[in-house]
């Protein structure tokens, strides 16, 4: 397998393939980044933080990776995080404890794997998709999962560690293609920690 591209968004900045983009990750960074990308996709405004981050990460990754090389069911989506949908869960609880009624538009985001659904709808990717809850970013775990989906016939895997809790947001995406090359755990960890 080989890594075709990476995208990292964290407090330290926005990086595509390790190169910093001129962009400040402030409180409104998701809204500002969306505006800077000149995308017309009103559904973006409805998404929760996790889905927005994954959405923006894919748009950035697309500037260096050609997803069109794969048919609609050849890309597997493998995502993970630590805090699941914690932030949205809290907001959903507030909607019925403080605002009087449970909010349906919040409820739909009280599962983290909704973000894979949002990506599938946006990009028309109908391959395998899965979302794991792990204690921390685990490179070996991702490599094992990627190999599993390659064995099942996927040609590429879009992987992501997308997390949001306690005012900490983090988005790391990488696209991996099936090839005879091997990627090392160290290489993946280095990309994640950039």
């Amino acid at each position, binding site marked *: 397998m080989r890594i075709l591209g990476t995208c990292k968004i964290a407090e330290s900045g926005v990086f595509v393939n390790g190169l910093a983009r001129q962009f400040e990750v402030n409180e409104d960074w998701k*809204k500002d980044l969306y505006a800077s990308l000149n995308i017309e996709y*009103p559904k973006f*405004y*409805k998404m*929760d933080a996790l889905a927005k981050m994954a959405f923006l990460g894919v748009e950035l990754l697309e500037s260096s990776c050609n997803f069109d090389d794969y048919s609609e069911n050849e890309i597997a989506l493998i995502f993970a995080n630590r805090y699941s949908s914690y932030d949205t869960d809290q907001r959903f609880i507030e909607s019925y404890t403080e605002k*009087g*009624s449970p909010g349906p538009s919040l409820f739909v985001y009280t599962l983290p794997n909704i973000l894979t659904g949002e990506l599938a709808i946006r990009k028309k990717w109908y391959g395998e998709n899965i979302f794991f809850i792990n204690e921390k970013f685990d490179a070996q775990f991702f490599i094992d999962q990627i190999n599993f989906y390659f064995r099942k016939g996927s040609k590429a895997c879009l992987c992501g560690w997308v997390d949001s809790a306690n005012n900490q947001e983090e988005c790391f995406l990488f696209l991996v293609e099936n090839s005879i090359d091997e990627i090392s755990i160290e290489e993946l960890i280095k990309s994640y920690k950039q």
Partner: protein
Amino acid sequence: MSDLKETLKEQIIEQLNLEDLTPADIQNEAPLFGEGLGLDSIDALEFIVLLEQNYNIKISDPSEGKEIFQSVDSLAAYIEKHQ
């Protein structure tokens, strides 16, 4: 009526958690569903809650929703008529 429309826009943003939008981003006559704001059937439920909580209006026939929730204009007209 224009005050009601502005209030409605603020309530839509609050109720639907569209915190990245401002009332100025919502046009009175623009469709709220489909293209427009990209809302869907889940959001229609939010509109039903919004009308009930803020205007004490209950929509007994859900099939009416399609027409009522078409735009801020149509929502405001419905509220004016039923209050």
